[in-house]
């Protein structure tokens, strides 16, 4: 009797009963598509901040999935892809004006719904980095860059590395917290050259 009953119940039915009977089992995670639908429904566009900003790039998706700590093979692919995205300066114009670089480093303007489409974006470097001795209001999410150029010089390898780090930070540290200043169009190539000068020019306050 028992055996006959068991044979009539399909495997999915047994599993369903087992799950239903186990009151202490954790809830299943909501489906990702449902969660994303709730998130999308919970925002609206305002000013320059449109809803397409919630559509994740492949890099954003991958970093979200691994909580910014991807396994080595995934990390290698992300870094290779990021490095391939870097557009190096035309005519070897690596270093602009460090004074303009300092203004860019101080400014947090840009891409918020409270900013205008035609506003000149800043890099807001001081939000996360120490840069100069004079500016004591600096954050610490990124490393200190005080004496960055004084410690490294201006060799071609340093120029290429630093440019790529600013253009697309994931080139060397996949899922870094830093924005992709060049790749995401936050700063222009000319602005990046000014930030490069702030970091590398021997006369810059960063290196004094």
């Amino acid at each position, binding site marked *: 009797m028992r055996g006959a009953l068991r044979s009539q119940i399909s495997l999915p039915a047994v599993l369903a009963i087992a799950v239903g009977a186990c009151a202490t089992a954790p809830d299943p995670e909501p489906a990702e598509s449902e969660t994303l639908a709730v*998130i999308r*429904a*919970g925002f609206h566009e*305002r000013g320059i901040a449109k809803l397409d*900003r919630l559509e994740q790039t492949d890099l954003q998706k991958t970093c*979200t999935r691994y909580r910014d700590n991807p396994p080595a093979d995934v990390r290698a692919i992300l870094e290779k892809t990021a490095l391939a995205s870097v557009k190096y300066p035309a005519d070897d114009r690596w270093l602009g004006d460090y004074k303009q670089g300092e203004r860019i480093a101080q400014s947090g303007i840009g891409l918020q719904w409270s900013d205008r489409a035609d506003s000149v974006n800043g890099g807001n470097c*001081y939000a996360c980095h120490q840069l100069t001795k004079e500016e004591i209001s600096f*954050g610490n*999410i990124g490393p200190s860059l005080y004496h960055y150029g004084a410690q490294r010089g201006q060799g071609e390898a340093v120029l290429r590395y630093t440019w790529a780090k600013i253009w697309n930070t994931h080139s060397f540290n996949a899922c870094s917290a830093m924005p992709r200043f060049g790749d995401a169009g936050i700063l222009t190539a000319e602005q990046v050259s000014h930030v490069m000068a702030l970091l590398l020019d021997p006369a810059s306050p960063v290196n004094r």
Partner: protein
Amino acid sequence: MRRPNSAVALIAALIGIGATAPAAIAQSSASDEIARYRLLLQDGNPAELLVARGAAMWQQARGPNDISLAGCDLGLGRGVVKGAYASLPRYFADADQVQDFEARLIFCMVTLQGFPRDELVRHPFSAIGERQTDIEALTAYAVDQARGATINVPQTHPLERAAFARGRYLFYLRAGPYDFSCSTCHGADDRRIRLQELPNFERAEAAQRAFAQWPAYRVSQGALRTMQWRINDCFRQQRFPEPTFTSQATVDLITYLGVRANGGKMDSPSIKR
């Protein structure tokens, strides 16, 4: 006015130190100076004026139905305001959804008092220099009524657990032109933007301290700001589109933060820079 005397004594001690040992003060770091500024701010919170306005408004017959909010159930039973804020967000059967305080307030103002919902949610946060909104005043009153209550955001109903899970997903979601998630700034110890210290929601103690202090009176804005405002302004700086006031996504995120903060003691309205 509700401040412990020990804080006053400490302020006096700090002022004393400033007068007698200027060298020691000069050597203290910028962060120490800011901590001192914050401590000095504790001596009287202008939010108390807004709490008083909210208290009177809560009892007053208002809206098309000319009725007070005394019949509003914030989760501890009809009419119970004392301590209720500390157990929000939570599931409400009459709305069949999880609501944070501000979502619940809107629900009561619509269902009891008959206010049109669109009108209430059109302008929930006062602009700088503007008179604080009714929503801000009523929120200030309700959270003040929970001062000292233990944060206990429930995870009993399946929808409460679903809200937590979605909120956690949103907390880690990297998106927008800056690639930021909430976790970018709030996922490690001792992080600062400029000189602003950032609570790490991975740690219960930091989450408790942060959650307990919102809503807060913001000296730099001359206004009380609510938890919905706090979430809104984080997403602005995150370069996301604007979160819709009291949307499910915002309630989910507040549920996640609240559950992380469970066990802490409410200390709001606080006063901040």
